[in-house]
Protein backbone atom coordinates (compact mmCIF):
# COMPACT_ATOMS: atom_id res chain seq x y z
CA UNK A 1 0.00 0.00 0.00
CA UNK A 2 1.08 3.55 -0.61
CA UNK A 3 -0.39 6.66 0.98
CA UNK A 4 -1.45 9.96 -0.53
CA UNK A 5 0.39 12.79 1.16
CA UNK A 6 0.32 16.54 0.75
CA UNK A 7 3.86 17.88 0.77
CA UNK A 8 4.40 21.59 1.38
CA UNK A 9 7.72 22.84 0.05
CA UNK A 10 9.15 25.96 -1.51
CA UNK A 11 9.90 25.15 -5.13
CA UNK A 12 12.01 27.73 -6.95
CA UNK A 13 10.91 30.36 -4.45
CA UNK A 14 7.18 29.58 -4.60
CA UNK A 15 5.49 27.98 -1.58
CA UNK A 16 3.79 24.96 -3.13
CA UNK A 17 1.55 22.14 -1.91
CA UNK A 18 1.81 18.97 -3.97
CA UNK A 19 -0.30 15.87 -3.64
CA UNK A 20 2.10 12.94 -3.93
CA UNK A 21 2.12 9.22 -3.37
CA UNK A 22 4.33 7.98 -0.52
CA UNK A 23 6.21 5.96 -3.13
CA UNK A 24 7.10 8.96 -5.30
CA UNK A 25 10.66 10.13 -5.51
CA UNK A 26 11.26 13.88 -5.47
CA UNK A 27 12.09 13.57 -9.18
CA UNK A 28 8.71 11.97 -9.93
CA UNK A 29 6.87 14.49 -7.76
CA UNK A 30 8.56 17.43 -9.48
CA UNK A 31 7.98 16.18 -13.03
CA UNK A 32 4.69 14.33 -12.77
CA UNK A 33 2.85 16.12 -9.97
CA UNK A 34 4.26 19.66 -9.93
CA UNK A 35 4.94 20.01 -13.65
CA UNK A 36 8.53 21.09 -13.11
CA UNK A 37 10.00 19.57 -16.26
CA UNK A 38 13.49 21.09 -16.20
CA UNK A 39 14.61 18.32 -13.91
CA UNK A 40 15.46 15.27 -16.03
CA UNK A 41 15.47 11.53 -15.50
CA UNK A 42 18.48 9.66 -16.84
CA UNK A 43 19.34 6.57 -14.87
CA UNK A 44 16.92 6.81 -11.93
CA UNK A 45 19.54 5.26 -9.66
CA UNK A 46 21.93 8.03 -8.67
CA UNK A 47 24.59 7.58 -11.32
CA UNK A 48 24.01 10.26 -13.97
CA UNK A 49 23.14 13.53 -12.21
CA UNK A 50 20.45 14.56 -14.74
CA UNK A 51 18.02 14.89 -11.84
CA UNK A 52 20.30 17.17 -9.77
CA UNK A 53 18.44 19.72 -7.62
CA UNK A 54 19.33 21.84 -4.63
CA UNK A 55 17.60 20.70 -1.45
CA UNK A 56 17.94 23.44 1.16
CA UNK A 57 20.92 24.68 -0.86
CA UNK A 58 22.63 21.28 -0.96
CA UNK A 59 23.20 19.36 -4.20
CA UNK A 60 21.32 16.05 -4.28
CA UNK A 61 20.06 13.57 -6.87
CA UNK A 62 16.29 13.96 -6.78
CA UNK A 63 15.79 10.35 -7.92
CA UNK A 64 17.33 9.31 -4.58
CA UNK A 65 15.12 11.50 -2.40
CA UNK A 66 11.58 10.54 -1.41
CA UNK A 67 9.04 13.27 -2.16
CA UNK A 68 7.71 12.94 1.38
CA UNK A 69 11.13 13.89 2.75
CA UNK A 70 11.04 17.45 1.39
CA UNK A 71 8.18 18.65 3.59
CA UNK A 72 9.13 22.15 4.76
CA UNK A 73 12.22 22.30 2.53
CA UNK A 74 13.47 24.54 -0.19
CA UNK A 75 13.90 22.94 -3.62
CA UNK A 76 15.70 24.62 -6.52
CA UNK A 77 15.70 23.24 -10.06
CA UNK A 78 17.11 24.76 -13.24
CA UNK A 79 13.89 26.80 -13.54
CA UNK A 80 14.98 28.66 -10.42
CA UNK A 81 18.30 29.90 -11.80
CA UNK A 82 17.26 32.70 -14.16
CA UNK A 83 15.96 35.96 -12.74
CA UNK A 84 12.97 37.24 -14.71
CA UNK A 85 14.29 37.62 -18.28
CA UNK A 86 17.94 37.39 -17.32
CA UNK A 87 19.64 34.08 -17.68
CA UNK A 88 21.96 33.07 -14.85
CA UNK A 89 25.62 33.64 -15.82
CA UNK A 90 26.05 29.86 -15.91
CA UNK A 91 23.21 29.51 -18.43
CA UNK A 92 24.64 32.37 -20.49
CA UNK A 93 28.11 30.79 -20.44
CA UNK A 94 26.75 27.34 -21.42
CA UNK A 95 25.08 28.99 -24.44
CA UNK A 96 28.03 31.13 -25.48
CA UNK A 97 30.58 28.37 -25.01
CA UNK A 98 28.47 25.65 -26.67
CA UNK A 99 28.62 23.52 -23.53
CA UNK A 100 25.68 21.40 -24.64
CA UNK A 101 24.54 19.35 -27.59
CA UNK A 102 21.44 17.23 -26.97
CA UNK A 103 20.85 19.03 -23.67
CA UNK A 104 19.45 16.21 -21.54
CA UNK A 105 22.29 16.56 -19.03
CA UNK A 106 22.34 20.36 -19.05
CA UNK A 107 19.82 21.19 -16.31
CA UNK A 108 21.66 18.85 -13.95
CA UNK A 109 25.05 20.34 -14.81
CA UNK A 110 23.71 23.88 -14.33
CA UNK A 111 22.28 23.10 -10.91
CA UNK A 112 25.40 21.19 -9.83
CA UNK A 113 27.66 23.99 -11.07
CA UNK A 114 25.55 26.57 -9.24
CA UNK A 115 26.02 24.60 -6.02
CA UNK A 116 29.76 24.62 -6.65
CA UNK A 117 30.01 28.35 -7.32
CA UNK A 118 27.82 29.13 -4.29
CA UNK A 119 30.39 27.32 -2.16
CA UNK A 120 33.59 28.07 -4.06
CA UNK A 121 33.40 31.18 -6.28
CA UNK A 122 36.70 30.54 -8.08
CA UNK A 123 37.23 26.78 -8.38
CA UNK A 124 40.23 25.30 -10.15
CA UNK A 125 39.72 23.09 -13.19
CA UNK A 126 40.42 20.07 -10.98
CA UNK A 127 37.83 21.19 -8.42
CA UNK A 128 35.25 21.68 -11.17
CA UNK A 129 35.86 18.23 -12.65
CA UNK A 130 35.81 16.59 -9.23
CA UNK A 131 32.61 18.36 -8.15
CA UNK A 132 30.86 17.47 -11.42
CA UNK A 133 32.00 13.82 -11.43
CA UNK A 134 28.46 12.70 -10.58
CA UNK A 135 27.06 14.37 -13.71
CA UNK A 136 27.40 12.43 -16.95
CA UNK A 137 27.33 13.84 -20.48
CA UNK A 138 27.39 11.60 -23.53
CA UNK A 139 27.79 14.44 -26.05
CA UNK A 140 30.24 17.18 -25.18
CA UNK A 141 33.29 15.41 -23.80
CA UNK A 142 33.11 17.69 -20.73
CA UNK A 143 35.82 20.17 -21.73
CA UNK A 144 33.36 22.79 -22.93
CA UNK A 145 31.28 22.34 -19.78
CA UNK A 146 34.33 22.90 -17.59
CA UNK A 147 35.26 26.00 -19.59
CA UNK A 148 31.73 27.38 -19.34
CA UNK A 149 31.80 26.97 -15.57
CA UNK A 150 35.15 28.79 -15.40
CA UNK A 151 33.72 31.52 -17.64
CA UNK A 152 30.61 31.90 -15.46
CA UNK A 153 32.77 32.04 -12.33
CA UNK A 154 34.70 34.94 -13.87
CA UNK A 155 31.50 36.74 -14.86
CA UNK A 156 30.04 36.31 -11.39
CA UNK A 157 33.20 37.66 -9.79
CA UNK A 158 33.39 40.73 -11.97
CA UNK A 159 29.70 41.57 -11.56
CA UNK A 160 29.47 41.01 -7.81
Amino acid at each position, binding site marked *: *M*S*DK*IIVSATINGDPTDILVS*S*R*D*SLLEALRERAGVLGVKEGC*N*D*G*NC*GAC*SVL*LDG*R*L*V*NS*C*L*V*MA*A*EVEGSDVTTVEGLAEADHLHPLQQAFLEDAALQCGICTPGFLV*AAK*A*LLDENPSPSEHEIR*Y*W*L*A*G*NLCRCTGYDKIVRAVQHAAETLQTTS
Partner: protein
Amino acid sequence: MQDLRYAKVSTVDDAVAALQAGGSTARVLAGGTDVIVQARARTRAIDMLIDIKGIDEVLQVAFDADGGLTIGAAAPCYRIYGDADVREHYPALIDCSTLIGGTGVQGRASLGGNLCNSSPSGDSIPAMIVLEGRAEIAGPNGRRTVPVEDFCTGPGRNVLEPGELLVSIHFPAPAPNSGAAFLRFIPRNEMDIAVVNAATQLRFDGDTVSWARVSLGATAPTPLFVTAAGEALVGAALSDETIAAAAAASKAAASPIDDMRGSIKQRKHLSAVYTQRTIAIAAERARG
Protein backbone atom coordinates in the same frame (compact mmCIF):
# COMPACT_ATOMS: atom_id res chain seq x y z
CA MET B 1 8.19 1.81 -7.77
CA GLN B 2 6.12 -0.78 -5.95
CA ASP B 3 3.99 0.18 -2.98
CA LEU B 4 6.00 1.96 -0.39
CA ARG B 5 4.96 3.83 2.71
CA TYR B 6 6.93 6.52 4.46
CA ALA B 7 7.07 7.53 8.10
CA LYS B 8 9.28 10.09 9.79
CA VAL B 9 10.23 9.62 13.42
CA SER B 10 11.72 12.13 15.84
CA THR B 11 12.93 9.91 18.68
CA VAL B 12 14.98 6.72 18.85
CA ASP B 13 12.15 5.01 20.78
CA ASP B 14 9.69 5.87 18.01
CA ALA B 15 12.12 4.48 15.44
CA VAL B 16 12.39 1.20 17.34
CA ALA B 17 8.59 1.00 17.68
CA ALA B 18 8.11 1.74 13.98
CA LEU B 19 10.68 -0.91 13.00
CA GLN B 20 8.94 -3.46 15.21
CA ALA B 21 5.52 -2.58 13.82
CA GLY B 22 6.83 -2.64 10.26
CA GLY B 23 8.43 -6.07 10.55
CA SER B 24 10.93 -7.52 8.10
CA THR B 25 9.80 -5.41 5.15
CA ALA B 26 10.40 -2.07 6.90
CA ARG B 27 13.75 -0.34 6.48
CA VAL B 28 15.48 2.63 8.04
CA LEU B 29 15.88 5.56 5.62
CA ALA B 30 19.05 7.59 6.23
CA GLY B 31 20.45 9.23 3.07
CA GLY B 32 18.54 6.80 0.86
CA THR B 33 21.39 6.34 -1.62
CA ASP B 34 21.28 2.58 -1.19
CA VAL B 35 17.82 1.89 0.20
CA ILE B 36 15.81 3.91 -2.34
CA VAL B 37 17.61 2.12 -5.19
CA GLN B 38 16.91 -1.21 -3.45
CA ALA B 39 13.24 -0.40 -2.86
CA ARG B 40 12.87 0.42 -6.55
CA ALA B 41 14.72 -2.67 -7.77
CA ARG B 42 12.07 -5.09 -6.42
CA THR B 43 14.85 -7.55 -5.65
CA ARG B 44 14.25 -6.94 -1.97
CA ALA B 45 10.77 -6.74 -0.50
CA ILE B 46 10.66 -3.30 1.09
CA ASP B 47 7.26 -1.71 1.73
CA MET B 48 8.03 0.86 4.41
CA LEU B 49 10.74 3.48 4.85
CA ILE B 50 11.31 4.90 8.32
CA ASP B 51 13.05 8.24 8.01
CA ILE B 52 15.28 8.77 11.05
CA LYS B 53 16.52 12.24 10.05
CA GLY B 54 14.07 13.85 12.46
CA ILE B 55 16.17 12.50 15.38
CA ASP B 56 18.86 14.97 16.54
CA GLU B 57 21.08 12.23 17.95
CA VAL B 58 21.52 10.52 14.57
CA LEU B 59 22.54 13.79 12.89
CA GLN B 60 25.27 14.88 15.30
CA VAL B 61 28.95 15.35 14.45
CA ALA B 62 30.45 16.09 17.87
CA PHE B 63 34.12 16.16 18.86
CA ASP B 64 35.60 16.48 22.31
CA ALA B 65 39.39 16.43 22.85
CA ASP B 66 39.07 13.92 25.71
CA GLY B 67 36.01 11.92 24.73
CA GLY B 68 36.62 11.64 21.00
CA LEU B 69 34.26 11.90 18.05
CA THR B 70 30.63 10.84 17.79
CA ILE B 71 29.11 10.71 14.33
CA GLY B 72 25.37 10.28 14.13
CA ALA B 73 24.39 7.33 11.97
CA ALA B 74 22.60 9.53 9.42
CA ALA B 75 25.00 12.50 9.27
CA PRO B 76 25.74 12.96 5.55
CA CYS B 77 29.27 12.84 4.12
CA TYR B 78 29.40 16.56 3.30
CA ARG B 79 28.92 17.43 6.97
CA ILE B 80 31.66 15.03 7.96
CA TYR B 81 34.24 16.39 5.53
CA GLY B 82 33.05 19.93 6.21
CA ASP B 83 33.76 19.59 9.93
CA ALA B 84 36.96 21.30 11.11
CA ASP B 85 37.56 18.86 13.99
CA VAL B 86 37.20 15.83 11.73
CA ARG B 87 39.60 17.40 9.23
CA GLU B 88 42.16 18.02 11.93
CA HIS B 89 41.92 14.82 13.97
CA TYR B 90 40.46 12.13 11.70
CA PRO B 91 41.82 12.61 8.17
CA ALA B 92 41.08 8.95 7.35
CA LEU B 93 37.37 9.82 7.62
CA ILE B 94 37.94 12.65 5.14
CA ASP B 95 39.68 10.17 2.79
CA CYS B 96 36.57 7.98 2.64
CA SER B 97 33.73 10.51 2.97
CA THR B 98 35.04 12.54 0.00
CA LEU B 99 35.01 9.58 -2.36
CA ILE B 100 31.66 7.93 -1.66
CA GLY B 101 29.74 8.69 -4.87
CA GLY B 102 29.77 12.18 -6.38
CA THR B 103 28.82 15.49 -4.79
CA GLY B 104 25.09 14.80 -5.03
CA VAL B 105 25.44 11.43 -3.31
CA GLN B 106 27.65 12.99 -0.63
CA GLY B 107 24.86 15.48 0.08
CA ARG B 108 22.87 12.55 1.48
CA ALA B 109 24.95 9.40 2.01
CA SER B 110 25.87 8.62 5.63
CA LEU B 111 28.57 6.49 7.21
CA GLY B 112 25.84 4.75 9.23
CA GLY B 113 24.06 3.82 6.00
CA ASN B 114 27.34 2.61 4.52
CA LEU B 115 27.92 0.38 7.56
CA CYS B 116 24.33 -0.90 7.79
CA ASN B 117 24.26 -1.64 4.07
CA SER B 118 27.19 -3.93 4.93
CA SER B 119 28.62 -4.22 1.46
CA PRO B 120 32.04 -5.92 1.46
CA SER B 121 33.31 -2.89 -0.48
CA GLY B 122 31.69 -0.19 1.72
CA ASP B 123 34.30 2.56 1.58
CA SER B 124 33.89 3.97 5.08
CA ILE B 125 34.17 0.64 6.89
CA PRO B 126 37.96 -0.03 6.81
CA ALA B 127 38.64 3.52 8.04
CA MET B 128 36.10 3.13 10.85
CA ILE B 129 37.69 -0.21 11.81
CA VAL B 130 41.24 1.14 12.11
CA LEU B 131 39.94 4.19 14.01
CA GLU B 132 38.45 1.79 16.61
CA GLY B 133 34.90 2.83 15.82
CA ARG B 134 32.17 1.50 18.06
CA ALA B 135 28.63 1.25 16.77
CA GLU B 136 25.96 2.31 19.25
CA ILE B 137 22.81 0.32 18.61
CA ALA B 138 19.34 0.93 20.06
CA GLY B 139 16.61 -1.68 20.12
CA PRO B 140 13.64 -3.09 22.00
CA ASN B 141 15.94 -4.18 24.85
CA GLY B 142 17.80 -0.89 25.18
CA ARG B 143 21.27 0.01 23.95
CA ARG B 144 24.43 -1.93 23.17
CA THR B 145 27.72 -1.20 21.44
CA VAL B 146 29.53 -3.34 18.90
CA PRO B 147 33.04 -2.72 17.53
CA VAL B 148 32.79 -1.82 13.83
CA GLU B 149 34.96 -4.82 12.90
CA ASP B 150 32.30 -7.14 14.37
CA PHE B 151 29.31 -5.35 12.80
CA CYS B 152 29.13 -6.93 9.33
CA THR B 153 28.45 -10.66 9.17
CA GLY B 154 28.21 -11.23 5.40
CA PRO B 155 27.41 -9.34 2.19
CA GLY B 156 24.41 -7.16 3.11
CA ARG B 157 24.17 -8.78 6.54
CA ASN B 158 25.06 -7.48 9.99
CA VAL B 159 24.47 -7.88 13.71
CA LEU B 160 21.31 -5.72 13.82
CA GLU B 161 18.38 -7.68 15.24
CA PRO B 162 14.73 -7.01 14.34
CA GLY B 163 13.69 -3.65 15.79
CA GLU B 164 17.26 -2.41 16.15
CA LEU B 165 18.83 0.64 14.58
CA LEU B 166 22.30 2.14 14.53
CA VAL B 167 22.29 5.42 16.43
CA SER B 168 25.88 6.62 16.13
CA ILE B 169 29.48 5.60 15.73
CA HIS B 170 32.00 6.67 18.34
CA PHE B 171 35.77 7.06 17.84
CA PRO B 172 38.27 7.57 20.67
CA ALA B 173 40.35 10.74 20.67
CA PRO B 174 43.46 10.18 18.54
CA ALA B 175 46.54 9.26 20.61
CA PRO B 176 49.65 11.46 20.34
CA ASN B 177 52.00 10.51 17.49
CA SER B 178 49.31 8.58 15.68
CA GLY B 179 48.09 8.77 12.09
CA ALA B 180 45.60 6.99 9.88
CA ALA B 181 44.78 6.79 6.18
CA PHE B 182 42.30 5.17 3.80
CA LEU B 183 42.73 4.45 0.08
CA ARG B 184 40.76 2.58 -2.52
CA PHE B 185 41.59 1.21 -5.93
CA ILE B 186 39.15 1.81 -8.77
CA PRO B 187 39.88 1.77 -12.49
CA ARG B 188 38.78 5.41 -12.93
CA ASN B 189 39.24 8.56 -10.88
CA GLU B 190 35.90 8.69 -9.10
CA MET B 191 32.38 7.24 -8.93
CA ASP B 192 33.04 3.51 -8.89
CA ILE B 193 32.89 0.56 -6.51
CA ALA B 194 36.18 -0.43 -4.89
CA VAL B 195 38.13 -3.31 -6.40
CA VAL B 196 40.04 -3.25 -3.12
CA ASN B 197 40.17 -0.66 -0.34
CA ALA B 198 42.35 -0.46 2.75
CA ALA B 199 43.05 1.57 5.86
CA THR B 200 45.84 1.72 8.42
CA GLN B 201 46.29 3.47 11.74
CA LEU B 202 49.74 3.66 13.39
CA ARG B 203 51.02 4.94 16.70
CA PHE B 204 54.70 5.69 17.34
CA ASP B 205 56.81 5.76 20.44
CA GLY B 206 59.86 7.58 19.12
CA ASP B 207 60.69 5.70 15.92
CA THR B 208 59.12 2.47 17.10
CA VAL B 209 55.63 1.51 15.97
CA SER B 210 53.90 0.94 19.29
CA TRP B 211 50.42 0.06 18.01
CA ALA B 212 48.90 -0.62 14.58
CA ARG B 213 45.63 -1.57 12.97
CA VAL B 214 45.09 -2.55 9.34
CA SER B 215 41.79 -3.19 7.57
CA LEU B 216 40.88 -4.33 4.05
CA GLY B 217 37.66 -4.16 2.05
CA ALA B 218 36.27 -5.91 -1.05
CA THR B 219 38.52 -8.89 -0.41
CA ALA B 220 36.18 -11.12 1.63
CA PRO B 221 32.43 -11.45 2.45
CA THR B 222 32.89 -8.64 5.00
CA PRO B 223 35.45 -5.87 5.49
CA LEU B 224 38.41 -7.44 7.30
CA PHE B 225 40.28 -6.38 10.41
CA VAL B 226 43.70 -7.84 9.60
CA THR B 227 45.26 -8.23 13.04
CA ALA B 228 48.31 -10.10 11.67
CA ALA B 229 49.23 -7.09 9.50
CA GLY B 230 49.14 -4.78 12.50
CA GLU B 231 51.19 -7.21 14.56
CA ALA B 232 53.83 -7.39 11.85
CA LEU B 233 54.48 -3.67 12.33
CA VAL B 234 54.49 -3.36 16.11
CA GLY B 235 57.71 -3.32 18.17
CA ALA B 236 60.13 -2.06 15.53
CA ALA B 237 60.77 1.04 13.48
CA LEU B 238 59.04 1.02 10.10
CA SER B 239 61.33 -0.63 7.57
CA ASP B 240 61.02 -2.25 4.18
CA GLU B 241 60.98 -5.60 5.99
CA THR B 242 58.17 -4.82 8.47
CA ILE B 243 56.09 -3.15 5.74
CA ALA B 244 56.60 -6.16 3.48
CA ALA B 245 55.57 -8.47 6.32
CA ALA B 246 52.39 -6.47 6.92
CA ALA B 247 51.60 -6.47 3.20
CA ALA B 248 52.14 -10.24 3.08
CA ALA B 249 49.80 -10.66 6.05
CA SER B 250 47.10 -8.66 4.24
CA LYS B 251 47.56 -10.68 1.08
CA ALA B 252 47.24 -13.89 3.10
CA ALA B 253 44.11 -12.65 4.89
CA ALA B 254 42.33 -11.64 1.68
CA SER B 255 39.95 -14.26 0.31
CA PRO B 256 38.44 -12.35 -2.60
CA ILE B 257 36.19 -13.42 -5.45
CA ASP B 258 36.52 -13.06 -9.22
CA ASP B 259 34.00 -10.64 -10.65
CA MET B 260 33.68 -8.00 -13.35
CA ARG B 261 35.67 -5.51 -11.27
CA GLY B 262 38.69 -7.65 -10.58
CA SER B 263 40.16 -11.13 -10.38
CA ILE B 264 41.25 -13.02 -7.28
CA LYS B 265 44.88 -12.60 -8.30
CA GLN B 266 44.56 -8.88 -8.84
CA ARG B 267 42.72 -8.36 -5.57
CA LYS B 268 45.29 -10.36 -3.62
CA HIS B 269 48.04 -8.26 -5.16
CA LEU B 270 46.18 -5.02 -4.47
CA SER B 271 45.63 -6.04 -0.84
CA ALA B 272 49.39 -5.99 -0.36
CA VAL B 273 49.95 -2.79 -2.36
CA TYR B 274 47.20 -0.82 -0.62
CA THR B 275 48.34 -2.01 2.79
CA GLN B 276 51.82 -0.63 2.01
CA ARG B 277 50.47 2.64 0.69
CA THR B 278 48.15 3.31 3.62
CA ILE B 279 51.01 2.51 6.03
CA ALA B 280 53.16 5.13 4.30
CA ILE B 281 50.48 7.82 4.48
CA ALA B 282 49.53 6.95 8.06
CA ALA B 283 53.20 7.24 9.08
CA GLU B 284 53.53 10.59 7.34
CA ARG B 285 50.44 11.87 9.12
CA ALA B 286 51.65 10.56 12.49
CA ARG B 287 54.83 12.55 12.10
CA GLY B 288 52.62 15.53 11.28
